[in-house]
Each structure stands twice: as structure tokens, then as C-alpha cells.
């Protein structure tokens, strides 16, 4: 979706401000939010792309107005309610009022190491890769209303395939519960001037990781 999250190339957000000796968490609740997200993911309540899409669907003024982990928390509330795991009445009450829905498994302290493990996104390919390193490609000019990994600044642009990463689960499908729909994934490189016009710094190149459905031969 053409949301506020897709901010590559926007002006006006100001300087980057690194924080010296930054703590891992700035408040204990941030850690609780991160850990709950991991636990619900492990339980199979939703996919990581579901969470990402839920964040993107927050109103732009909310997205920009809250902190990173507040965004996670608000997205998690959206997911538990929309997916029927929790009633809005329960969140308001701060207690369970109805029986829970069955989940695939539960993250307990004994298996926490498994919960820290990042799953593989490789999937069986459905067809041979259409492109190889060195191929010229043009990204499609698409504006889906749902989750996509093709950022706005890189749509309709001419680039070159640099790396082929294998066949991966396709987040555009996963985020809307349409299954893995495996697709080939490529690193595609663009000249700065292709993205930002003739005044761009000639020493800069930018790459994205693009799924095959985003690309046309050029």
C-alpha cells in the first residue's frame, strides 16, 4: 500500500540522531512487546508479514506520532482482535472474558531458544528463475492497496540484476493470508540518477531486493 511507512526518498524528516550508549530497551514494556510478538509468532497466530501489514495500516499520523515499539503494540492489538484471538472487550477490561482459541504450539521457557531462531524463507521453486545476474530489468509501476516490498521510489525504474537469492515466500501474498506463493528473489541495482534524476550524486547506486513479479525484462 502507498502508506507513510514507504518513506524512502522523502524529505523533511531532519537529521539522523544517533544516541550514544543506547540501551537495548528504553523501558521494560518495550521488551515485553518484542517478546510477546515473538511468542505469538512461534505459536503460529500470524506471520511476520501480517504484523508488518498491520503496522502499515495504522493511520499515518499515528504511525509517525508513536515510537517503534508502540507501533508494534498497536499492530498486535489489531492482529489479536481481527484474528479472533482476543475480544476488544477483553483488551478494555485487561482480563480474559472468553475461552481462548487453540494455537499450534506455545513458547515456554524450556523451548525459548527455538523461539529465537529465525525461520527459513526459502521455498520450493515453481518455475525456473526468469533472470540472471547482469540482466537488465524494469520494475513494474504497481500500486497495490495491500502489503508489497516494492518501494515507491523504485517503481518503473531501470536496473540490473546483481544477485539471485533463490525462491522465497512472497510477502505480498503471505500478508493477506494467500499462502506462500513462492517467487524468485533478486538484488536489483539502480543508478542514483535513475531514481533521483540528473542531479543525483553520480557515485551512488541503490539496490532493492525484488521479487520476480515486480520485474519485467528491459
Amino acid at each position: 500500500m502507498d502508506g507513510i511507512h514507504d518513506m524512502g526518498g522523502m524529505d523533511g524528516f531532519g537529521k539522523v540522531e544517533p544516541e550514544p550508549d543506547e540501551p537495548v530497551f528504553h523501558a521494560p514494556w518495550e521488551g515485553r512487546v518484542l517478546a510477546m510478538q515473538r511468542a505469538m509468532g512461534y505459536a503460529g497466530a500470524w506471520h511476520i508479514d501480517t504484523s508488518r501489514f498491520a503496522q502499515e495500516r495504522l493511520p499515518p499520523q499515528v504511525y509517525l506520532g508513536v515510537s517503534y515499539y508502540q507501533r508494534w503494540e498497536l499492530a498486535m492489538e489489531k492482529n489479536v482482535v481481527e484474528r479472533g484471538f482476543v475480544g476488544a472487550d477483553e483488551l478494555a477490561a485487561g482480563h480474559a472474558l472468553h475461552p481462548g482459541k487453540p494455537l499450534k504450539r506455545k513458547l515456554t521457557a524450556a523451548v525459548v531458544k527455538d523461539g529465537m531462531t529465525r525461520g527459513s524463507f526459502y521455498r520450493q521453486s515453481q518455475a525456473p528463475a526468469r533472470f540472471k545476474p547482469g540482466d537488465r530489468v524494469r520494475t513494474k509501476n504497481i500500486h497495490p492497496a495491500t502489503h508489497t516490498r516494492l518501494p515507491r521510489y523504485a517503481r518503473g525504474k531501470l536496473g540490473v540484476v546483481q544477485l539471485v537469492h533463490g525462491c522465497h515466500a512472497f510477502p505480498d501474498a503471505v500478508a493477506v493470508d494467500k499462502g506462500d506463493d513462492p517467487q524468485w528473489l533478486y538484488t536489483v541495482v539502480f543508478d542514483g540518477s535513475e531514481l533521483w534524476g540528473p542531479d543525483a550524486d553520480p557515485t551512488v547506486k541503490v539496490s532493492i531486493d525484488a521479487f520476480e513479479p515486480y520485474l519485467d525484462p528491459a
Partner: protein
Amino acid sequence: MAHDHDHHHEHAHGSELSETQLRVRALETVLTEKGYIDPAALDAIIEAYETKVGPHNGARVVAKAWSDPKFKQALLADASKAVSALGHESRVGDHLVAVENTPKLHNMVVCTLCSCYPWEVLGLPPVWYKSAPYRSRAVKDPRGVLADFGVKLPKETDIRVWDSTAETRFLVLPMRPAGTDGWSEEKLATLVTRDSMIGTGLAKNPSEAA
């Protein structure tokens, strides 16, 4: 007016924070009571991120690549495989790619859409990495962003920005500082900063080492 505004802002800020704490507590209580999550598991996850996972893991990888040409070759060929062989606390996963800085090329990593970051080797991303200023500008004005970090590269150095838009995660292999011949891997690792592995910084010089 200005006073009113400030007052309102401070007030809103204060109540917003406590509102978040209340919301998080409510969510955790409901999820626990419904049997979905185990608070003890949450404690263990938080402890792991606070104590075990962090940029010291990535620094070890970089220091080894600086010391061992065979490992460096393996790292650049297949970082997931090379790093997994070192046996880290959290398994590195299948999708790590290492990119090498040279005198001619500087690499920098961003996730414009959210916050993708190689957690397994660098820990959780810092706030600035997830912030709008970094996400918006890194792909358009990387030299300006580097200036925010106090880094100035030669005009002719090529800059490559990697936008992590899928599940691939990128680790920058910074250049080994001069004057470190004969240093042990352990000592070299003290020169490897988190930012040097994101590409918003350079490895420390021996004179800057603690």
C-alpha cells in the same frame, strides 16, 4: 500561546507513556490468561536480547574475516553458512549476505519500509536505524546521512546503499584499519563498531581503541 502549547505537550507526553504501559500490561495479561503465552518465556527472550545477542557477535565475524583469508572468502560467498559455523547464540538463519568495503566502494544498509536488520549478528537495531530521518534519506542522500555520523568519504568513493526490502539481511565488512598487523582476532574485534557493520561508520583506528 507558546506556554499553553508546551504545557499541553508535556501533559500529553506524560499520560501517553503511562497509557502505553497500561495497554502493554492489559495485552500481556489477556494473552497469558487465555493460555497463548508464558510470561516466563517472555523474561527469557528479553534476557537473551539484553545479554547474549548483540554487535559483539558481528564484531567477531569481522575480526575473523580480517585475520583469516579463507574465512573471508567463505563469508563473502555464503555468509549464512560461514557465520553458522561459528556457533552463535541465536542461529543466524538462511539469508545473511556480507558485503565488503574497499578503498573504492563503501556499502551502507537501510530498511526504508520498516526495520529489517541482521539481528543474529548485530542484535536489535538502534532507534535511529528505525527512524524516519534515516529510512527516508539513506537511499537519496547517503553522503548527507554519513555526515550526520561524522563520516566523510573521499568524493570519488562509490557508495552502494542496500535497501533490505525482503528477508535477505546484509552485514557490512568494514575495511581493516591500518597499523593492526599482527593483532589477534580478539583485539581486532574491539575496533569493530556496530555502525561500521551497518555502513554508517568506519572501524576504529588503533589510537581510538579503548
